[in-house]
Each structure stands twice: as structure tokens, then as C-alpha cells.
């Protein structure tokens, strides 16, 4: 790990100090949400293949597949997280790699889940994994990263869109992509809608499949050639391995997601819908994204009611799809649905049965700022959570107030930048920690891209959005919708909780927060043990389920 004193620091556009370079590699400080252009002219290219007379790519075991692609020390391997906490693929692959004694790998998954903690931590400790590039970390993996004791290099925390950008730019060069495929045929046509471990979509792997030098598909459901739909097609897949089980269906998708019954969270969700309506965003032809967290589900449900009452129809919606969005598609409140992840069985079935109006799309098309067009830019409303919001509207979704890396960032900064109305729904405080703070412990999403903060005790509008403030002056705001400044919210939060406790930082850099354009927006230092353990003080209910799902 790198000591902070060994680095040269520069202040970025939001006033955070970030290193100028790391391990001889130049880093770009964040300069604004839409300013940093690609630093290379062309995309990174994977190696060419050769398939003149090949009629099957099936290999008999995972071990053999790993040998065939020639996985060696120091290479980079990748995985998708569509099986969420029911994933068997990453553990199975890492165990095989451990047996072969391959060391110092870079692990570049789109995200990780608690079911992989034990294996990943063991692999880090025994030297199989040297660093983690990617997605996010939570739980025990987050603790391990935050301790600063095990990984050789700082982890790079990237948004969903940022990961695609990094792969396309060659910042992450994937040597072997291991793709868990709910169904596959013998030449590697893969999809996520068929099979016992169906997860709806495997779109997080589209970019891995396209840019990795080698692609190994792992399936528990081999079907007759050709497998339709060809979500990932044979031209990208080297080998197919058939195993007993790639995942636990009960943990891949929720049977029935329930709306929160917490009155505070319901109030936040309802007020978010009301403020979006007052600001004129709930109208015919709108588009929106809301995820599967407790507040987000309730938001979707309340929005659904309001849209029916107002007789307005949304052109499209996207997100971590759930029954609540599928219901809107079914009754015509939403005309088209785009899925990034399918969170429940209703979403998976809808993708399979209604491919005309319900589709998935590559994550690059969803959120990559260095692509040629992404759906987030066409969003009217996005509703997001946060672990902290500060008085400059900057949002933290990576660490707790204690500095511990604990939460996945998902597509937070991507959608915030793209959507024309970005609403953050948060309680004013969690346990004894204020959520609205003077300065975020860690910044993931810059305040410039955040518009409205909705808490149970008041709503703040970003003063940069003069149009929204003017709009509010023209409409009658009900008495119980308390509009205040972000400073007032922060003072309220401090009055109730007694203020923010600063993290007990160490002097090592354990993670870089990379903005979606590849610039560095913030860094995370190691956290030294303290006399208290923050996990005890944080109400588990309050940590958004959505952010756990991403």
C-alpha cells in the first residue's frame, strides 16, 4: 500500500486532494462532470481468434478451460454480479486457480457479494489476488480493503458506466473473463433468461466478452444449438464449461420484493414523488429510473398511483427492474422497459415473455460517458440513495461516515449526471450518524449533478438549479412539504445527532474513487480501529437494500 507522504497531491474541481500519479501511472484530477475527454484515440483491442473448422467449444472441466486459455501470474480476471448473493461461479473459479498456484491476479468483477467474501479474502491473504479493480466493495471485503493491510495496490472504485469506460480504454485489460451463463450452447451463444439459474440479463458481461482476450462461459444449462436469444454470441466466447450449479436461484432473484413499512421511509418516498410532480416532471412522455431499494420501490409505487390518477404515460423506464416496474409496463403506465439488472422473478419472466417492450442493453449503452450515446442522458427523473450528502450536494455512496468502505456505488454518478432531475432520498440521520453533513467523508457523485435532496424533515434544492427554484415559486407548495436549504437540513441533522464524527484515518491510500470519465474525484485512506464499532450503531434497516443489490 502507498503511504500518503510518498505521493504528490493536487486539488481537484471539488476541492479534494488527489494524487498526481500512482505507481508511475499518471492520474487525472476530476475537473467537472462533462469536461474530461478520452485520453486515447482508439479503444483497446482484444486478441484475434481462429475458428476455421471448430464445431464445439465445450471443454470437460473448469480446470482444463483455465489451462487452455493459459492463465498465468499477474493476469486480470473478471466476473459479472448478476447472480448477486447466489453466485457460485466466482468461488468455483478462484478455488480452481488457487489449486493451480497461480498468484498475483487482478480481480476485476462488476461487483462482489457476501457469498464471495470468504473466498476472496482467503485468496488475497494467500497471494492469489494482488489487487481489486472494480465495482465496489462491501461487508468483509470492504473492511479488508479499508484495513490497508492486505492488498498491494489501492482498489479502484468505479461506477457501472465507469467500469465500461475503463475496459474500453484499456485501463482494465481483462485476460480472462469468466461468464456465468444461465444457458449456453456448444459454441457459446449465451443468455440470462433461460435455465434454472436464470437471472434475466447478463449485460454486465457484454463489455467483458467483447474486450477480454479470453472468454470462458460457465453454465449449468446446456441447450441445443443455436441458443436464442444470443445475448452474448459465439463470436466472443472461447470455451464453455458445464457444471452442476452456477448459482442458487433463491438468492439470485427475490421471490417477492416488499415495499418498506417504515413510515419515515414511506414519507420520504411519497415526498419525492410530490416534489417531482410540483417541479413539473410527472408528465406525459416522461422517463425515469428507480431501483429496488426500500425507498425506491415505494417511490415507484407512489409514482405509479399518481401517474394513473393524472392519466400520464411514461415513454420508458429503466433500472434494476422489479415487479413494480413490470406492473407499470403491463397496465400501460410505462410503454418500454430497459433492464440493467433483474431483481425479482417477475422481472425475469417479463424479460423472457415480453421481449418486444422489455429489453436489456449493454451497460456501456446505459452509462458510458466515453461511448457514443447512453440512456442515462435521456432520463427525466432518477431517484437514488446515499450514505452521506454534504452542503455542496456532493454525495457519498462508497464509505460510511467512519471511512469504512461499505457500500457499492452502482450507477449512482452515471445516472445523476445524465438525468435532468436527480433526486436523492435519504433519512436525515441513521442511528447516531448525520446523513446530511458539512463535508462528505468520501465523494462519489459531484454536487453539480445532484438536484434535490428529500429527507423526512425537509427538502433541499440545489441552488445551481435556478430553474427549479423559480418553478417552485410559481406553484403552491403544501404546508407539510418543507422546503429548506441544504445548510438548514445539515444543522437539523447535527442538532439531533450531535454532529459528525471524523474517521480515524491512517496514512495509507486504500482506494481511489474514479469518476465515470476516468478522473479521480476522491481517495479513501485506511481506517484505524477505534474504541467503537460503527456497524453496531447503524440501523441495518436504514442501509438501502438497493445499494446492497448493485
Amino acid at each position, binding site marked *: 500500500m502507498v503511504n500518503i507522504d510518498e505521493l504528490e497531491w493536487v486539488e481537484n474541481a471539488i476541492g479534494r486532494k488527489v494524487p498526481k500519479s500512482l505507481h508511475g501511472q499518471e492520474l487525472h484530477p476530476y475537473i467537472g462532470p462533462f469536461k474530461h475527454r478520452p485520453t486515447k484515440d482508439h479503444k483497446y483491442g482484444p486478441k484475434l481468434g481462429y475458428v476455421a473448422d471448430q464445431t464445439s467449444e465445450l471443454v470437460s472441466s473448469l480446470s482444463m478451460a483455465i489451462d487452455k486459455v493459459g492463465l498465468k501470474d499477474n493476469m486480470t480476471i473478471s466476473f459479472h454480479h448478476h447472480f448477486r448473493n447466489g453466485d457460485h461461479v466466482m468461488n468455483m473459479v478462484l478455488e480452481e486457480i488457487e489449486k493451480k498456484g497461480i498468484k498475483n491476479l487482478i480481480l476485476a468483477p462488476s461487483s462482489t457479494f457476501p457469498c464471495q467474501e470468504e473466498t476472496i479474502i482467503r485468496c488475497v491473504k494467500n497471494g492469489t489476488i494482488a489487487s481489486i479493480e472494480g465495482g465496489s466493495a462491501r461487508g468483509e471485503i470492504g473492511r479488508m480493503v479499508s484495513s490497508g493491510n492486505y492488498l498491494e495496490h489501492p482498489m479502484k472504485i468505479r461506477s457501472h458506466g465507469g467500469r465500461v469506460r475503463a475496459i474500453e480504454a484499456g485501463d482494465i485489460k481483462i485476460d480472462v473473463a469468466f461468464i456465468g451463463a444461465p444457458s449456453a450452447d456448444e459454441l457459446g451463444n449465451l443468455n440470462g433468461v433461460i435455465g434454472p439459474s436464470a437471472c434475466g440479463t447478463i449485460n454486465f458481461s457484454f463489455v467483458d466478452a467483447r474486450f477480454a482476450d479470453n472468454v470462458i462461459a460457465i453454465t449449468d444449462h446446456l441447450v441445443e444449438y443455436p441458443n436464442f436469444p444470443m445475448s452474448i454470441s459465439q463470436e466472443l466466447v472461447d470455451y464453455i464449461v458445464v457444471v452442476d450449479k452456477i448459482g442458487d436461484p433463491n438468492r439470485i432473484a427475490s421471490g417477492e420484493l416488499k415495499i418498506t*413499512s417504515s*413510515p*419515515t421511509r*414511506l*414519507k420520504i418516498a411519497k415526498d419525492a414523488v410530490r416534489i417531482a410532480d410540483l417541479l413539473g416532471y410527472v408528465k406525459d412522455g416522461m422517463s425515469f429510473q428507480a431501483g429496488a431499494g426500500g425507498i425506491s420501490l415505494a417511490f415507484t409505487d407512489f409514482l405509479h398511483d399518481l401517474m394513473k390518477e393524472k392519466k400520464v404515460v411514461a415513454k420508458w423506464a429503466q433500472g434494476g427492474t422489479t415487479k413494480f416496474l413490470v406492473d407499470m409496463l403491463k397496465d400501460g403506465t410505462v410503454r418500454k422497459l430497459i433492464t440493467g439488472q433483474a431483481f425479482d422473478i417477475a422481472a425475469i419472466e417479463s424479460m423472457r415473455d415480453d421481449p418486444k417492450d422489455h429489453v436489456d442493453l449493454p451497460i456501456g449503452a446505459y452509462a458510458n460517458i466515453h461511448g457514443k450515446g447512453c440512456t442515462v442522458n435521456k432520463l427525466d427523473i432518477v431517484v437514488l440513495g446515499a450514505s452521506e450528502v454534504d452542503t455542496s450536494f456532493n454525495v457519498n455512496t462508497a464509505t460510511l461516515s467512519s471511512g469504512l468502505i461499505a457500500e457499492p456505488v452502482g450507477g449512482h454518478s452515471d445516472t445523476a449526471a445524465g438525468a435532468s432531475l436527480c433526486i436523492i432520498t435519504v433519512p436525515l440521520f441513521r442511528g447516531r450518524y448525520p446523513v446530511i453533513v458539512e463535508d462528505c467523508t468520501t465523494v462519489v457523485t459531484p454536487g453539480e449533478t445532484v438536484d434535490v435532496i428529500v429527507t*423526512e*424533515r425537509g427538502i433541499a434544492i440545489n441552488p445551481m438549479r435556478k430553474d427549479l427554484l423559480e418553478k417552485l415559486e410559481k406553484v403552491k407548495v*403544501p*404546508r*407539510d412539504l418543507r422546503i429548506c436549504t441544504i445548510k438548514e437540513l445539515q444543522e437539523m441533522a447535527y442538532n*439531533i445527532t450531535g454532529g459528525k464524527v471524523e474517521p480515524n484515518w491512517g496514512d495509507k491510500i486504500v482506494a481511489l474513487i474514479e469518476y465515470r470519465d476516468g478522473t479521480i474525484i476522491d481517495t479513501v485512506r485506511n481506517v484505524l480501529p477505534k474504541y467503537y464499532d460503527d456497524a453496531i450503531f447503524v440501523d441495518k434497516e436504514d442501509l438501502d437494500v438497493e445499494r446492497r443489490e448493485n
Partner: protein
Amino acid sequence: MKLRRSRLYVPGNTPKMIPPAGLYGADVISLDLEDAVGPDFKVDARMLVSEALKIVDFGPGVEVTVRINPLSTEWGRWDIRQIVCNKLDGIYIPKVESPEDVILVDELVTDLEEKKGLPIGRIKLFATMETAKGILNSYEIARCSKRLEGITIGGEDLTADLGGERSSDGIAIHTARQLIVLAARAAGIQAIDTVYADFRDMEGLRKETELVRKMGYDGKACIHPNQIEVIHEVFNPTPDEIVHAVKVTNAIEEARKRGSGVIALGKKMVDRPIALRAEKVLARAHAAELPIPTIEEIKAIEETTSSGTGKGGGDD
């Protein structure tokens, strides 16, 4: 007019629930020292509630009340002594059976207001009848104190006292409910209904609230914040009622301008009950911040919607 559509019970010994109690839009919150608190926690709850009254900002417009223990228990008097302060708006007295039960509280409160230098008479009282005896004495009780602004009925205890059965139609306490409304109206105060215990059953809650609204009740107690919205929806005048009330008021105004004693709205005569009802509807709509259209707006809408039918505005 003080709106008391919803009255949210908050357990007095649950610190987590007290500070956010004012956030959910309830007209009244009742920090509960009685049934929600077990005997071993009565003292803790009393301390917590008296401190909360001083420091928690429950928000604008919320009536902050405490349900004390009956004076017949060892806790009742101490409850009053400790909670009376300038932030307390009212006290709910449970298990009232006779006017003396209220008068005693009135005297204790007056005494404390004097001692603490608080304005005399600002703290309101509300009596809950939950025994057969209390119900039969409700008229006497309803007019025994100037502080008394409402009487309520305790459904669970009363059903038990009657030997009846709690059912979705509320048949066991039906007459009692009517007696409470009669007593309240005769005394010129408000009638507030008991809780609906199954807080997940919104349809059941709506049905019961509609029933008591039709009986004449002003509001209903609730045990969960999620019940508030349904209760408000039922007790709020509907847009049609508001439009009608505006028309009635306008007809009265026009008749007055003409100097005519006969007031007509379309083909119907507006008599005193109709006029009074309209007044009440508008007062409620105003207090609940519901949109009240002007007569010009109503006429404009009716002209566009009824054009061609030849019916014309004026009648509903």
C-alpha cells in the same frame, strides 16, 4: 376550527418513535403513558415524555398531547405533575366514568399552571369513555369542564366491559359510538373515535372510518403513521362537496345582495341545515389546506363540461 381528524398514539417508552412522531401529518399526537407502557416502565416513560415535550420540535400545527394513566392508579397524578409545561397542548384522560374524573384533572392542571406560571386554561382535556358506566354518563362528562374539547371512545376496553365481541362491523359498540356523538354534540365539543387495531388492513380501516364519519365523528385515533392518510382521506370533504359548498355560499351571498329572503341553488332551496353544512365543509377544507375553487372557476369549468347538454350550471 381545530382539525382533529387523526390522533396518532406514540408509545411513551420508545425513544426512537417520539422525535419523528410529528412528521407524518397527524393533526394530534398522543404520547402514551397508559396502555402502551407496562407497569415496570411507567416511571421511565413519564420521564422520557416530559423531557421530549421540552426538547422535541414536533412541527407546526400539530397538537401535542399526552395520554396519562387514570387517576385511580398510582401513576396518574404523577403523570400530570411531570408533563404539564408550555409545550403541552392537551391531556387525554382514560377510563373516565364520571364528571369527577375530569374535574379532578382540571383542578390539578389549573393548580400546576398557576405554580409554573403558565397561562391558565390553555391545556385542553379530552375524556375517553371505555366502560358501560362511562358511556351512560357521557353527556354529564362532556359538559363538566371548560377545558374539555372532545370525548372519545375506547373500543377494546368497552367491548370487554360489555362482554361483547370485537368484529369488523363494530356491532358491540355501535350504540355507545352513537351516544358519544350525541353527548359531544349536545355539549358542543368534538367526538373522536377509537383505534383500528389491524394497521396493515387499510380497507378495513377505511370502512370503519367511513362508518364513524357518517355517524358524525370528527376524527379517529390511530396506532400507526401509515393509517393517517386513509383517515384524512375519509374525513376530508370531497372535491364535489367543496364545489357544492362554494355554490351554496355564493347563492346565499347573491340572495343577500338582492335583499331576498329566499335562497335558491338551481331548483333546490337552500335552507339552514344546508347553509350550515356548507359552512362546515368550507371550514374543514380551509383547515386541511384543500384546494377551494372560486365560484368563477367553478362556473368556467361547468360551462366547458356541460356545453351542448343544455343543462347549464347551478345545480349539482
